[in-house]
């Protein structure tokens, strides 16, 4: 790739502003509404994207996809309902910031981290594309089993205050994720006799139930989402809160950069996705922090890390599709259909036969991020006002409207009932600290985990020891055990220090 080509591509993409802006606005709306996924929106818009020239179609799809990743954090921060699985980690510190009356600041932090995280990793992808495309090839089914278990364990350990409760919630979710027919014989498993469960548990119904419905049932207890001490600040928040958010974001620029790269590396692995990336970045951020005990109480780093990482994933997910012809997720699969319809053959040859289009996709992404910051930043002040609506109105609207949205994924009334069931389970989990995030991620990873596990076991003719047969896999197992043991070791050390202190005071 030459500098001339790159500059031409940037100029051409800026010229497509009239396609990118509607894509961004639609992506923001779709991301905010739980139940609306970018892939479903792109499928509905296929008649449009197939009809226009491929460059315009791709600029639109990429803008929608990136804006969707960015705006999933908005409901996560304001009402603890992530717009998508990738924003689940944002609830951990974003919502406590809202409760403290800092919703506007949290939104600005999330927008800046998302945009710059996405932008930096997109530019890095352009430069490192040949090397990044190899990562997906290194990980085989055995390693993927450990990667997915590692991700789930991290989430259980991070999200829940009680590791054991987090693990129970995570594995409960993982087992729910196995509901449906198996991949080889199409034999139904644990479907309770419902035909609607043969395809597995719909993720949107689970997301809406576990987060939206359960949260609305919990918020009934209070008059406002914002805690009493933060109300005054939330009510008199003005543009200075946006500026303060910008200042903090600039101050923490390095945090944005390195967590975005965590997202990029995880995004390159097919199937791993934004939810794992966001949690790994959050965990790493907490691990390297000078004040890990403040995570979960509403601190800027706790919003920046997951948001930057889940936008770092956007360019990473497209790498296997462009370089290997393997879509990294459902959205990229829809994009691939559009490209193939226009006669493009994915894979390494794309960079020699159509370099303008191959690199243009990432340039388009970079340009979309530039447009995005100017589009969404001014909206933070107005979006944050939603938390001042009384729960008397907010709770019924959230429950009924999101239950309606549960219908949108598969168009079954059954899914609305299922969302309500998940809502009740989520409410019990909320009240007893079995973290719903771990449960949801388990449900998302369930089918993927099964695919890799069965593939590995078929290769070894059913021998479980295959899971310990590779050096990389064993290293990952070691890290998994370490991540499980570390919290217990920390608690033991704290208890020991406390006991020593008490003993010192008594003597």
């Amino acid at each position, binding site marked *: 790739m030459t500098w001339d080509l790159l500059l031409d591509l940037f100029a051409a993409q800026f010229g497509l502003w009239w396609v990118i802006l509607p894509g961004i606005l639609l992506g923001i709306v779709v991301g905010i509404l739980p139940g609306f996924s970018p892939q479903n929106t792109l499928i*509905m818009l296929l008649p449009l994207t197939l009809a226009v020239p491929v460059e315009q179609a791709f600029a639109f799809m990429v803008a929608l996809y990136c804006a969707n990743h960015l705006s999933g954090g908005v409901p996560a921060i304001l009402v603890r309902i992530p717009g998508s699985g990738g924003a689940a980690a944002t609830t951990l510190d974003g919502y406590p910031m809202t409760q403290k009356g800092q919703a506007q600041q949290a939104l600005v932090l999330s927008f800046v981290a998302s945009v710059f995280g996405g932008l930096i990793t997109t530019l890095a992808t352009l430069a490192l594309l040949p090397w990044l495309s190899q990562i997906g090839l290194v990980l085989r089914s055995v390693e993927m089993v450990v990667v997915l278990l590692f991700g789930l364990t991290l989430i259980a350990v991070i999200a829940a205050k009680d590791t*054991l*409760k987090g*693990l*129970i*919630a995570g*594995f*409960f979710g*993982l*087992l*729910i994720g*196995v509901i449906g027919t*198996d991949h*080889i*014989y199409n*034999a*139904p*498993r*644990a*479907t309770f006799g419902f035909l609607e469960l043969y395809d597995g548990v719909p993720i949107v119904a689970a997301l809406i139930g576990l987060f939206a*419905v359960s949260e*609305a*049932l919990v918020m*009934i*207890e209070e008059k406002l989402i914002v805690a009493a001490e933060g109300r005054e600040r939330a009510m008199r928040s003005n543009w200075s809160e946006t500026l303060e958010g910008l200042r903090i974001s600039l101050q923490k620029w390095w945090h944005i950069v390195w967590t975005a790269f965590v997202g990029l590396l995880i995004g390159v692995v097919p199937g791993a996705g934004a939810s794992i990336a966001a949690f790994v970045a959050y965990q790493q951020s907490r691990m390297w922090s000078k004040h890990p005990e403040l995570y979960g109480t509403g601190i800027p780093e706790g919003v920046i890390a997951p948001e930057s990482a889940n936008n770092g994933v956007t360019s990473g997910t497209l790498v296997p599709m462009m370089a290997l012809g393997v879509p990294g997720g459902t959205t990229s699969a829809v994009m691939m259909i559009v490209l193939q319809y226009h006669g493009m053959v994915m894979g390494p040859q794309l960079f020699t036969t159509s370099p303008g289009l191959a690199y243009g996709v990432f340039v388009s992404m970079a340009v979309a991020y530039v447009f995005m910051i100017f589009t969404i930043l001014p909206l933070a002040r107005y979006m944050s006002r939603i938390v001042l609506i009384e*729960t*008397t*109105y907010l*709770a*019924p*609207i959230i*429950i*009924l*409207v999101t*239950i*309606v949205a549960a*219908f*949108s994924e598969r*168009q079954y*009334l059954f899914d*609305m*009932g299922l969302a*309500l069931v998940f*809502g*009740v*389970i989520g*409410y*019990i*989990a909320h*009240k*007893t600290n*079995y973290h719903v995030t771990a449960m949801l991620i388990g449900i998302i990873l369930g089918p993927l*985990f*099964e695919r890799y*596990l*069965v593939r590995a*076991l*078929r290769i070894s003719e*059913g021998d479980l020891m295959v899971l310990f047969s590779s050096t990389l896999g064993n290293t990952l197992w070691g890290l998994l055990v370490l991540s499980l043991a570390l919290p217990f070791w920390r608690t033991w050390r704290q208890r020991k220090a406390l006991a020593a202190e008490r003993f010192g005071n008594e003597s």
Partner: protein
Amino acid sequence: MSPDRSPLNRAPLGADLVIPALALGFAIYFFFSIADLAWEAKANGVLIGVVLIALIAVQLVRLGIRLARGEGDLRADPLWQPRDALWKRIGMVALTVVFIAALPWLGLTLTLLLAMLAALRVMGVRKLSTLLWVSSGVAAAAYLLFIATLESAFPHGPIERLLAALFT
């Protein structure tokens, strides 16, 4: 100084048992449902189920130890407290069940309008103008988004049929 173990200061551990009980029940049902399947179809479920049951066993032992020490009892108070919110919660869940059941007959817009009216009443809104304004606003927005724009396959009722007749 020994910890206060009077009944009022004991932790309500009964609530902590609900999710493990649900998970355990589901795992057992899962094992029954896969009993006759080929190993490829059940390997994953067995592996996850066994780990889940082991984790639940550890949790039960942990809770048992706390109960034996007198640190808690089997109350499940966190699930129904505060009491004044409990009836609102039950009302909202019951209303949602009725909403889903009525949807095929009344269509999305009318069912949502009536459900919103009832839900706001359950939540304590008494002012008629507010009830009507909020409910009709939500129903109209849902109609515009789901029926008019996205053409979702929601059941059509009298309002959808009337509007379709007017605009076609």
